[in-house]
């Protein structure tokens, strides 16, 4: 049973509706890239609160460290150096799970209850139900889930579902020294973003905007971007992310259809036997051979 304050909206590999009488407020985390100083306090808070320590890596020549998300690093800062209008801009994006309203991971997952979407919008992995197939990786348009080499379970940011359940903000939001990570209801976060956008536009960032991609139904982690028209500047943030049509084909209508087709072949065979009877060796042939033998 999930925490009571976190009602379930969707459950992986489950075809019946979850309990849904209670409506809860949608939450969101807003990452204001224009206010981020790249201090990595969020990375530290994440490992502190979740109590996991990644292996110490090596310097790759840039600030990115660890260089990528891992089963033990659920959020990483990505530092992009971009030249805009003759000036260098250091675009620092805190990467991690976007908590999509339409989560590709959950859609692709074959293990019942391994991926849960709470009514408040948080998408959470329940590792005890995870079978380690990695289908969530193929479902994700943001390349977020990581399969642990140690236990073959999938891991990613939980948006601190345990903290949110008791009315706390995620650890990264709690610790951010500049207020670049905000947490609240999705509506509040959109309002907050609007104010930030007014400020950014007044400072000459005409294309500043909120990143809440509709291709995945919107997300519960949103970004304020100075260059919202080119999200790919921010270490390859996808411009218009959506679940791959291949995943839709694989997980959509085709499978129930194939199941019906397989059942039809099995039943068709049974009824063929019942209606047409078996194909026996003819009596005449058997008699003919018996006569030959008797000679």
């Amino acid at each position, binding site marked *: 049973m999930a925490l009571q304050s976190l009602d379930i909206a969707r459950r992986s590999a489950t075809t019946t509706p979850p309990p849904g009488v209670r409506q809860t407020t949608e939450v969101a985390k807003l990452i204001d890239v224009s206010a981020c100083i790249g201090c990595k306090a969020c990375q530290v808070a994440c490992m502190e609160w979740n109590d996991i320590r990644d292996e110490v890596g090596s310097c790759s020549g840039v600030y990115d460290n660890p260089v990528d998300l891992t089963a033990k690093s659920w959020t990483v800062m990505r530092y992009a150096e971009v030249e805009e209008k003759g000036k260098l801009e250091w675009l620092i994006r805190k990467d991690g799970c976007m908590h999509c309203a339409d989560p590709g991971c959950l859609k692709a997952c074959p293990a019942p209850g391994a991926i849960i979407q709470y009514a408040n919008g948080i998408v959470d992995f329940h590792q005890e139900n995870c079978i380690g197939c990695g289908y969530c990786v193929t479902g994700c348009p943001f390349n977020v889930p990581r399969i642990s080499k140690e236990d073959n379970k999938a891991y990613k940011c939980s948006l601190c579902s345990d903290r949110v359940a008791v009315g706390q903000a995620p650890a990264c939001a709690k610790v951010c020294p500049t207020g670049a990570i905000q947490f609240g209801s999705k509506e509040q976060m959109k309002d907050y973003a609007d104010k930030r956008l007014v400020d950014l536009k007044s400072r000459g960032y005409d294309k500043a905007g909120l990143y809440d991609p509709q291709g995945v139904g919107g997300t519960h982690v949103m970004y304020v971007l100075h260059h919202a028209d080119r999200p790919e500047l921010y270490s390859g943030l996808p411009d218009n992310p959506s679940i791959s049509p291949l995943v839709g084909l694989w997980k959509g209508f085709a499978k129930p259809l194939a199941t019906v087709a397989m059942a039809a072949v099995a039943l068709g065979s049974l009824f063929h036997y019942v209606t047409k009877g078996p194909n026996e060796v003819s009596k005449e042939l058997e008699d003919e*051979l018996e006569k030959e033998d008797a000679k």
Partner: protein
Amino acid sequence: MIRNPKDLQRYTAHERANHWVVGICFILLGLSGLAFFHPAFFPLAQLFGGGVWARILHPFIGVLMTLSFLGMFFRFKSLNTMTPADKEWLARVGEMVNGDDHNMPEQGKYNGGQKAMFWVMAASVALLFVSGILLWRAYFNFPVDAVRLGAVVHAAVAAAMIGFIMVHVYAAIWVKGTIRAMWYGTVTRAWAKQHHRGWYRQMTGK
């Protein structure tokens, strides 16, 4: 059943054993694979000790089936070359299914349907092996688009193959006197004369 010394040897012990290894692998693969195919089948994973064990075992059984199928492929490949008579047989398969096989063209060791099944199985195993390797995350790491495509191909080919195998098994049940060929290798002369007259004449010289 008393075995008649005049029965015809259709399969050697090695051929039968090979077929059973493929068949057992296929059943295990079908059951464990369906568990991931649709939530309705997930309980099948319990037959393997739960979802994690099903996920671990499925690809190894797949490799074993591919290898044992290769054995069958090379044993029977030359016997499964399509001829014009086979094509005519296939064109008139409706009569056969309808229960009247008296006017079907004369067939050798295998009829057109069996040969078509052989090549469909060969193509299916090849596709399942390649797409399965793409999906085998415990040991391989391919670009995500290749894995996505692999998942679609694997699921589609597997579903089709399950259908074809059901037809294969049903045909053996429907045509009486056939299954013993896979148990102990022999068939009666009357069976051979009725269903594979060309092969009957070749075996008996009549």
